[in-house]
């Protein structure tokens, strides 16, 4: 038996998510296969083959897989899934769309966003927006799971796995792709940035959000993040919402500016190495997760901090 990792990529670049997933997959001490599905994925497949610890890359290539619709992707996994003991990916919008469908087709449960893989098909994951941990044991013959990327190291490169093709099932035709919009930014991507500067509702407007936080993020070579309240108020775009219903980040340094620290927000950032909070309310819950708290008016403290970095 082997382990199957579902590959995720952006353009011609294999996503860091795959390197985390491969290292999680190695927990089982079984051969690790990576499934690369798409329309023109030779280069992605060779990047996957170069990950250390990968024994085989399965390349599912067909014209209709260009946008990897869930129906088609899950169909491919269901077609080969019976050969595997474990099917996994890093928890992301991509894998969350596909793997539950594949699990249902294989008639097995799925375990989402696993923090720790234990012996005996046992896993620890968080529930209630990360306020509690639940340890569950699966009775299924095939284990389908997503893992919390930042809890698993990045697998190294230097491998040289074989790349195999496969017969791809016909297009399901149940859905069709129309368009996508990606935020273009010269800042590092939020998910992988070493520094994240996040702002809350208290920034007051989109203009102030940008004017106060961008210079600091720029100085630190970091990405911008936001609370849901800031996003809902129109101060920041959807894509940068950090939390239970947004992105989960774990940078070296997370600076929360005017963020109250609701569990739905801290879910997305509490694994960060060092957390700094700037808030004028000394009792704000964010100080409970912060390593360093500065009780101050953000409109004074942030420009002062930025200036100090000159």
């Amino acid at each position, binding site marked *: 038996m082997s382990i199957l990792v579902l590959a995720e990529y952006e353009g011609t670049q294999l996503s860091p998510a795959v390197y985390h997933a491969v290292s999680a997959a190695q927990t089982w001490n079984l051969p690790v296969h990576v499934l690369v599905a798409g329309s023109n994925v030779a280069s992605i497949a060779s990047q996957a083959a170069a990950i250390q610890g990968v024994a085989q890359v399965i390349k599912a290539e067909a014209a209709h897989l260009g946008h990897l619709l869930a129906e088609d992707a899950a169909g491919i996994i269901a077609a080969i899934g019976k050969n595997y003991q474990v099917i996994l990916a890093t928890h992301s919008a991509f894998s969350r769309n596909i793997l539950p469908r594949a699990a249902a087709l294989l008639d097995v449960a799925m375990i989402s966003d696993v923090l720790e893989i234990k012996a005996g098909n046992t896993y620890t994951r968080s529930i209630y927006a990360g306020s509690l941990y639940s340890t569950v044991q699966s009775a299924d013959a095939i284990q389908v799971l997503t893992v919390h990327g930042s809890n698993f190291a990045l697998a190294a490169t230097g491998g040289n796995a074989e790349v195999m093709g496969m017969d791809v099932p016909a297009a399901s035709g149940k859905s069709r792709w129309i368009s996508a919009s990606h935020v273009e930014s010269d800042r590092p*991507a939020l998910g992988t940035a070493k520094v994240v500067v996040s702002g809350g509702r208290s920034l007051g407007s989109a203009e102030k959000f940008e004017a106060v936080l961008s210079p600091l993020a720029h100085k630190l070579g970091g990405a911008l993040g936001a609370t849901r309240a800031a996003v809902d108020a129109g101060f920041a775009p959807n894509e940068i919402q950090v939390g239970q219903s947004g992105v989960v980040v774990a940078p070296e340094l997370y600076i929360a500016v005017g963020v109250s620290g609701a569990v739905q927000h801290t879910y997305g950032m509490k694994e960060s190495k060092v957390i700094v909070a700037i808030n004028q309310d000394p009792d704000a819950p964010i100080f409970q997760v912060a390593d360093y708290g500065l009780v101050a008016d953000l409109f004074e403290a942030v420009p002062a901090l930025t200036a100090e970095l000159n």
Partner: protein
Amino acid sequence: MKVLVAIKRVVDYNIKVRIKPDGSNVDIDNVKMGVNPFDENAIEEALRLKEKGIATEIVAVTLGGSINQDVLRHALAMGVDRAVLVESDAVLQPLGVAKLLKAVVEREQPSLVILGKQAIDDDAGQTGQMLAGLLGYGQGTFASTLAIQNNEAVVTREIDGGSEQIAVTLPAVLTADLRLNEPRFVKLPNLMMARKKPIETISANDLGVDASPRLKQVQVSEPPVRKPGIKVGSVQELLEKLRTEHGMDLKGNK
């Protein structure tokens, strides 16, 4: 067209949930419960489709004990036409829920099924995709906009780093993102009226589905606590700590 909305009864999102003394599960006795927030978005979107003359009937369904009637009353008060309780006192997990919902879909034959993108108690985010897979329907997950055009659901989906638009052939399964809409408030008179409306009850056993749990919960525990932090008095002190105690150079880009 008929729309089916699946709603879960969960602990109110403001409540800090406690663990039972023996660590076997969470303790939710006497805790404030309500409709899962994402499922309120699902209900709201169905109501808007009806107000636009696209949907003709909205059915809300929940799976669980008889106590779940309260979330159905809430859905009725928001404006759904019918409420169905699939009664079960068993432990329900996403795959089991999806199998039971499939049986309900086969009875009701809706053109559209809308779920929440995730339940805020188990944070699984699986049921909609599983249901779509079992039914062989197309899926539009994490939907932040919806339009029905020419027998398709045109959906904007929230994805990593942006959004995408897809069109899903009806009948379809959608899952609602919080961004989909702003759910309406329930007015007290509507809640009073909803109390008098009938709730159809089906026993889960009568649906002929094996919905037994595949996962055994071994333990519920507190997450590890972070080392308590300290308050710094100034931005200078903050930078000094970051530099000396964490070796961050923080030189600053130009």
